[in-house]
């Protein structure tokens, strides 16, 4: 993948204060988050976010670091989760502390990945994508047939509170589950980061960029891919275990293409070239999902459009766009960017709001119950039969587009200047 950011090589191996800072900061943030957002729904969202982050990071071990596009990654998370739910239902569960359960999910995710990886990592790219899709669909379809393990249509449910208390904590409330999830998130994120720094993680990057050359250096690109694949399966299984603890139920939905596809979406949106990209993606996506699905019925249309736009215009994702701004900030030229950004991006946002307004009104006009013409959009209530809202939204869209388009060259120019040390004209 040419678009991927080449990770810079670092010769020093030791742990410096500078490299540890982001981790310490994240740990402190994870501890403090429940004090900042105290409501129950916020903690539920944060749990969901943390699980998605682990899953997305594990997915990025394949896509970003190994160059393997998988359409069936949900399977490893799902199987890990199913195993954990089954363990919750066994008597043996009474002697296992709950926080260790995700490890078991990880091991089973890894076992499955080591079997599937045997034939699927032969090639990267399209062939790998196809095989992952086939295997994913196969296992998802098996879920209705192998009822003993997958529980058929209604899935398998368990109760996390039967485990022996862990230092007196019985995991009855959401907040206790949050700290468990956050702990695992931190551990697995750190492990995945360290994996990407090991020689095998480095070779995964090399094989991604140029498998032929890696082969000439004496590495089997297949085994390098296999190792990444198995490791990714392990962390996906951990995410599955966390899912099982948090929701206490797993169904066919955890295995199917929709889940696999949405994790691709999350990861790509965040950015595959940077290690923390999937973290950004998971946070933004979960928030988008929560906020948009409350506001509008057709939120997945917007998410789909956003995804396609990301692939077309920002293939390095949100984190990639963020990273582009490091240079201007370091050079001290970022001030040059502020005004051009405002005069271009504000009209662009107005244009998008206008378009989405038009879409919403149109959707309401077509699909609302007959006779129901009243609708509320952007905190304003109006009738979709009136002509005024249509005109307002259309004007917003057209004027916003025109202004953004007019100012875009100015922004590009400022961008080029900001990336020069002296901020000189191009």
């Amino acid at each position, binding site marked *: 993948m040419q678009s991927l950011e080449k990770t810079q090589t670092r010769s020093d191996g030791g742990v410096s204060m500078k490299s540890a800072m982001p981790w310490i900061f994240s740990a402190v943030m994870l501890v403090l988050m429940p004090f900042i957002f105290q409501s129950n729904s916020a903690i539920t969202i944060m749990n969901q976010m943390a699980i998605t982050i682990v899953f997305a990071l594990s997915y990025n071990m394949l896509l970003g670091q190994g160059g393997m596009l998988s359409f069936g990654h949900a399977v490893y998370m799902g199987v890990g989760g199913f195993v954990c739910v089954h363990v919750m239902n066994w008597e043996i569960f009474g002697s296992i502390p709950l926080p260790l359960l995700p490890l078991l999910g990880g091991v089973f995710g890894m076992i499955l990945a080591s079997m599937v990886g045997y034939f699927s990592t032969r090639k990267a790219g399209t062939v790998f994508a196809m095989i992952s899709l086939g295997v994913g669909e*196969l296992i998802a379809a098996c879920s209705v047939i192998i009822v003993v393990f997958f529980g058929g249509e209604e899935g398998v449910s368990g109760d996390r509170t039967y485990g022996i208390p862990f230092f007196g904590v019985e995991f009855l409330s959401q907040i206790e589950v949050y700290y468990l999830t956050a702990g695992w998130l931190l551990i697995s994120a750190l492990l995945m980061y360290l994996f990407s720094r090991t020689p095998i993680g480095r070779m995964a990057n090399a094989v991604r960029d140029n498998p032929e050359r890696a082969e000439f250096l004496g590495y089997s690109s297949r085994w390098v891919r296999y190792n990444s694949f198995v490791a990714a399966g392990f962390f996906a299984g951990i995410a599955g275990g966390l899912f099982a603890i948090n929701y206490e139920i797993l169904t066919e939905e955890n295995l199917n293409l929709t889940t696999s*596809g949405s994790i691709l979406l999350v990861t790509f949106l965040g950015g595959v070239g940077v290690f923390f990209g999937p973290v950004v993606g998971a946070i933004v996506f979960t928030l988008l999902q929560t906020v948009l699905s409350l506001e509008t019925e*057709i939120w997945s249309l917007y998410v789909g459009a956003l995804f396609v736009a990301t692939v077309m215009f920002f293939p390095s994702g949100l984190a990639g766009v963020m990273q582009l701004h490091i240079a201007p900030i370091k050079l001290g030229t970022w001030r040059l960017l502020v005004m051009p950004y405002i005069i271009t991006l504000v009209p662009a946002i107005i244009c998008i709001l206008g378009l989405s307004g038009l879409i919403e009104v149109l959707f309401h006009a077509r699909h609302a119950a007959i006779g129901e013409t009243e609708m509320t959009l952007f905190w304003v209530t109006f009738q979709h039969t009136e002509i005024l809202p249509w005109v307002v939204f259309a004007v917003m869209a057209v004027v916003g587009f025109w202004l953004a388009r007019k100012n875009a060259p100015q922004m590009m120019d400022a961008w080029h200047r900001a990336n020069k040390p002296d901020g000189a004209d191009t």
Partner: protein
Amino acid sequence: MDLILVNLIDGLVTGLLLFMLSAGLTLIFSMMGVLNFAHASFYMLGAYFAYQISIYLGFWMGLLIAPPLVGIVGAAVERYGLRRVHQYGHVPELIFTFGLALLIEELVKFIWGNDQIPYQIPEILEGAAFSISSYDIPAYKVFMIFLSLGIFAGLLFVMTRTRVGMIIQAALSYPRTVEALGHNVPLVFMGVFGVGTALAGVAGVIAGPVLSTFPGMAFVLGSIVFVTIVIGGLGSLGGALVAALIIGWMTTFAKAYNIRMEDILTGVGFTKPEPTWDSAWADLWTLTSPQIADILPYLLMILILVFRPYGLFGKRDV
């Protein structure tokens, strides 16, 4: 014997339908190296366009107009979307088409709603064409078979006997040389993408009324189409045909004959555990062939990939 014949015809219909989709997909793949994830979405668009047209002009005009429309949409996608993403490499292209598949499904839901739409077969094709002993063969199935065979004959003729076909074949293997000879290769690519999606559109127009037209129809068929071209060998038209027919017949026969695992296992000499539902192997004992009909293609694909990674007729490694 009669039942076998009926199932052969049913399997043929499914197989030809699959081939119509996989032919376009494999052509696009061998030419551009792009696996079009949204291919089945164009099939769905074909069905919806035809439905919309059939409301005003009737089924036959739908059959005539909808596929070219789908082809135009496909060509536009290639021109303004794929060509842009192409510079980033094959994996982003695949991700793009995946996103496109999501987007098309959402757009279809937005325009036509979440429910199944009443897209019907034309009155003239209702009823039976002929019957084999007591089984009626619907006229619509016969129509589907002949239409798809006709299209393939046309496709084969264009690809092997005309100048355009020659250029396409040349561009498949030596795009640079063809370009140096003065042909507009990007235009050829756009054309092939358009024709491939139009073929998917035709499949949608004729399959919509029998397989029901709803926003999930692309999803249902999408992955089977991929399985087909992987089994047949990526890039091989003949392989796609053979694989499509195999899958069509395999699933039809598995559904038609209720082969029970119980009989096989007792035949081999195992004893059935009693009570069955309490046993850990309960699922194995209660397994029947109609149950697993839908996963047979995937199993076949995995077997093929393990033992013959190039697919049945694939020549090159991709």
